[in-house]
């Protein structure tokens, strides 16, 4: 437990001393998620979860969860959160929603950009290592799709990754700037 932390600290100190404090831990993670336009009789915006998994396939951090937050008799759309099957299993079922800075309303078709910098709570505790960005989407009376993009954290050089959805997701891109 202590060892990786001290490693992080020493890397941080070295980086800081060489590059100056302003550039320390200034990595930025940028994700663009495309929700496709679908020609269907009954369309509901998908529920979408984005999270980061470690090499152990456990959730390291949740980045975003979009669900129907409008009040209904059955709850604020939370009844359908288990339809995000993997997200529900890996972390959703143990969390209390809404979560500040993570949960939000469903989004329409189109490209949605998300930016996180290393200082933000989402990434602040991410230890150096191999990770996977996971994007899961589930739509009422529709389907479900899950995409993965592997990456290394922190990035020493700019990294980019891409995954192409077929049904519930369009193109998802990830870029990390050191």
């Amino acid at each position, binding site marked *: 437990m202590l060892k990786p932390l001290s490693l992080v600290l020493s890397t941080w100190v070295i980086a800081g001393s060489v590059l100056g404090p302003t550039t320390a831990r200034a990595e930025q993670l940028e994700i663009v998620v495309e929700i496709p336009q679908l020609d269907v009789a009954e369309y509901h915006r998908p529920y979408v979860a984005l999270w980061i998994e470690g090499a152990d396939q456990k959730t390291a951090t949740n980045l975003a969860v979009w669900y129907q937050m409008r009040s209904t008799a*059955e*709850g604020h759309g939370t009844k359908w*959160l288990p339809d995000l*099957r993997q997200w529900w299993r890996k972390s959703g079922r143990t969390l209390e929603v809404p979560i500040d800075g993570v949960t939000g309303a469903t989004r329409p078709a189109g490209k949605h950009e998300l930016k996180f910098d290393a200082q933000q709570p989402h990434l602040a505790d991410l230890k150096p290592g191999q990770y996977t960005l996971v994007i899961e989407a589930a739509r009422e009376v529709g389907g479900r799709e899950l995409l993965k993009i592997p990456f290394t954290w922190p990035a020493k050089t700019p990294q980019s990754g891409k995954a192409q959805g077929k049904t519930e997701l369009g193109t998802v891109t990830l870029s990390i700037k050191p």
Partner: protein
Amino acid sequence: MKRSLILAWALVAALPLTASAHKAWLLPSQTVLAGNDPWISVDAAVSNDLFYFNHVPLRLDNLVIIAPDGNQAEAQNGATGKYRSVFDLQLQQQGTYRLAIINSGLFANWQENGEPKRWRGTAANFASEVPANAEGLRVSESVGRIETFVTNGAPSDKALQPTGKGIELVPITHPNDLYAGETAQFRVLLDGKPAEGLEFEVVRGGTRYRDAQDELKVTSNAKGEISVTWPEPGMYWLETTSQDSQTSVPQAQQRRLSYVATLEVLPQ
């Protein structure tokens, strides 16, 4: 009415040992829930095909629901129709509920003045209700559990504590955390002790739409554990039967034991 009740009970009690055994089951509308006010509806029936109610209903008299806090919860809107019983359950607590129909008791038949007599009851009223010198007295005992599990929010274990009676499954893998392609493990208990050598039959629902039962067979090992690798997602029926001589009255030579669980396996 009473006679038909006894017959229905006898049918369920006799299930495990008949070659053409029908399958008894509980079928929850879903097993993984969330939201402000989650409910489930549960079918209870006995049939050959899984999970179709086309033979006789499974009666709800012996339904016991254990809530996540370990206390009993009450079913609502219970009804028994021609082919199935049905009830609702409001999941007021977070965690895992255990829903079981527990059929345990004694079954006796004898001759009285040339007439066949039948009786069912418990060890407590056996002596007062069955004549001590009954002619041709035959007594059997049966302990059966037909159960399923549902979880509101995160899975929990308190409701899954064994009762120590009959055959039970203790989760090593939580029964509401089952996924296709993965291997689940359970410990099999007989009267609270790990039981080796019990063979389980595992059949996925939807049998009407395929040519074979595609049943899996697994046997509990020396530690009483079974492992099941789920080939695909679906609602699975799992059963084992056994018999021994640990009867609660000396007049009964044999105790028949049975266990059924309905388990939902989700896709990855």
